[in-house]
């Protein structure tokens, strides 16, 4: 008798109906999660005259995309978002990998205090520090500049990512690092040449998440930028009020904002799924 370790889907029903119901359930789930995005893509492909009746008519056009791409402000916002996301990912990993390593490998008052600190600051709502950050960046002369946008985007992930990195390093046996140190490696050598390479899958997962979070971020960009370095999410939100009736353009911009995130996520999917298994 085969041992069933996973409960059957709806036990008690005949096998064929179980299979059909399972397939229908899967179909329903896929529909629920994919439909809004598919509808957005469909809307973006409709000509201006057909946009209000997306479900009817067979004309499709790429003219909305062409119009969006000829708008300098939107293209600029795309480049800004891509640049900030990439830089924020690099720097935030540099900072949090070492911080997570410290939390995982050492005991004593310093790691305990640091862990308490990052837990508390992880709880603080963004609005409580981004609101005054508006003045801080202004008085430091970095408001509405790349620096003024990049540094807060690095700071925001310190707490969560240090915590995740600690979990990843906890899952890696430290004996290799001890062996390296006995063989004459310095602490830094053991960290950079032994621990970091073995945590590379987790670090890749974090890189994907960090890039997506920064690309999708809204509140920081809303408060910390004026006209010089707009981010794509803010430009889109302004669309809703300024071009409230031009849904084809809005959909085209939104679809374009999805594309880089999709590529990054598809490329990084296996890392994220493996990385989440902590």
């Amino acid at each position, binding site marked *: 008798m085969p041992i069933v370790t996973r409960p059957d889907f709806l036990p008690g029903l005949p096998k064929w109906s179980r299979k059909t119901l399972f397939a229908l359930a899967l179909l329903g789930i896929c529909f629920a999660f994919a439909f809004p995005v598919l509808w957005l893509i469909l809307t973006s492909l409709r000509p201006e005259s057909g946009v209000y009746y997306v479900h009817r008519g067979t004309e499709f056009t790429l003219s909305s995309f062409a119009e969006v791409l000829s708008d300098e402000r939107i293209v600029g916002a795309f480049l800004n978002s891509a640049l900030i996301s990439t830089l924020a990912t690099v720097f935030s990993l540099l*900072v949090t990998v070492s911080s997570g390593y410290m939390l995982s490998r050492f005991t004593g008052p310093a790691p305990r205090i640091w862990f308490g600190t990052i837990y508390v600051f992880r709880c603080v709502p963004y609005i409580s520090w981004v609101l005054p950050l508006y003045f801080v960046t202004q008085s430091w002369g970095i408001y509405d500049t790349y620096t003024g946008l990049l540094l807060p985007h690095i700071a925001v992930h310190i707490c969560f990512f240090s915590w995740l990195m600690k979990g990843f390093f906890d899952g890696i046996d430290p004996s290799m690092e001890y062996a390296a140190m006995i063989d004459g490696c310095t602490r830094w050598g053991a960290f950079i040449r032994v621990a970091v390479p073995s945590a590379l899958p987790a670090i890749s997962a974090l890189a994907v998440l960090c890039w997506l979070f920064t690309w999708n971020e809204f509140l920081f960009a809303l408060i910390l930028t004026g006209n010089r370095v707009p981010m794509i999410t803010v430009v889109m939100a302004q669309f809703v009020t300024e071009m409230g009736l031009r849904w084809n353009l809005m959909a085209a911009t939104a679809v374009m904002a999805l594309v880089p995130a999709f590529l990054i996520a598809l490329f990084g999917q296996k890392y994220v799924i493996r990385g989440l298994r902590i």
Partner: protein
Amino acid sequence: MFGEQQRFVLLLIAPAALLLLLFQVVPIVIGANASFRDWALYNPKKTWIGFDHYAAVISDPAFLYVVLPNTFLFMVLSVAGALVAGLMLALLLNRPFRGQKLVQTILLVPLMVAPVVAAIMIRWIFNDQFGIVNVVLEAIGLEGQPWLVQRWSAFGIILLTDIWLWTPWFTLLLLAGLQSLPKEPFEAAAIDGTTTWRVFRFLTLPMLRPVIVVCVVIRAIDAFRTFDIVWTLTGGGPGRSTELFSLYAYVHAFLNLDLGRGSAAAIIGGLIILVIGVVLYRLVDRIAKA
């Protein structure tokens, strides 16, 4: 002054600690300072007025009877909704079947969608004149609703958008948790002929509890500060009936141009979530040790 090991330990966290200090601690201190002053953006007198702003926020009926209940209701329902949906999906997907990879990829879709984009999508789908939902409703003879300009339907749509965005997180984390559970108890239960419900209730659920609790804590704290989907979907309207705490602080600081009052609201919200966060942390600690 420090030994070699202490120097290493401190250097490892130095960059992170410096950034945290400059971009979180310093602003919070400045915000706390502003919350005690008459600090209107158009006329920053910056005179000390004590707890006046706090009193104004706490006695503001909009804050007490709309914003706070909305925030808590949103937090509880969004976490509960995403947890239940995520758990059901994880249980359903926790078996081999054809097309598993495809379903998994589709489930990842909401993770890639920016909340602002999700809000725009949902706004279009629920548009009162041309949205597909009303088109379908009218096609089957029902009446279309102005979804986003009625308080509770607007609130429900915000909630739905949030659950759509976060269910996949729960699914992935819980699925990973399910797959790392030991097989033996389930085999024993199968040999004993235990019913599916009892297996779930007395085996799966207790063994999965640590993962569930961690997911819930992380998500609850994030749900409390939700800003972008509400801002894009309703802007807090109709009236101010769907405002959450982050919006309240933002509106006071940047639309009413009263930084002092906005900062006071932000500090009050921060304190509330800090208390919740510490309580939840204790809970996780107890469950992890039990």
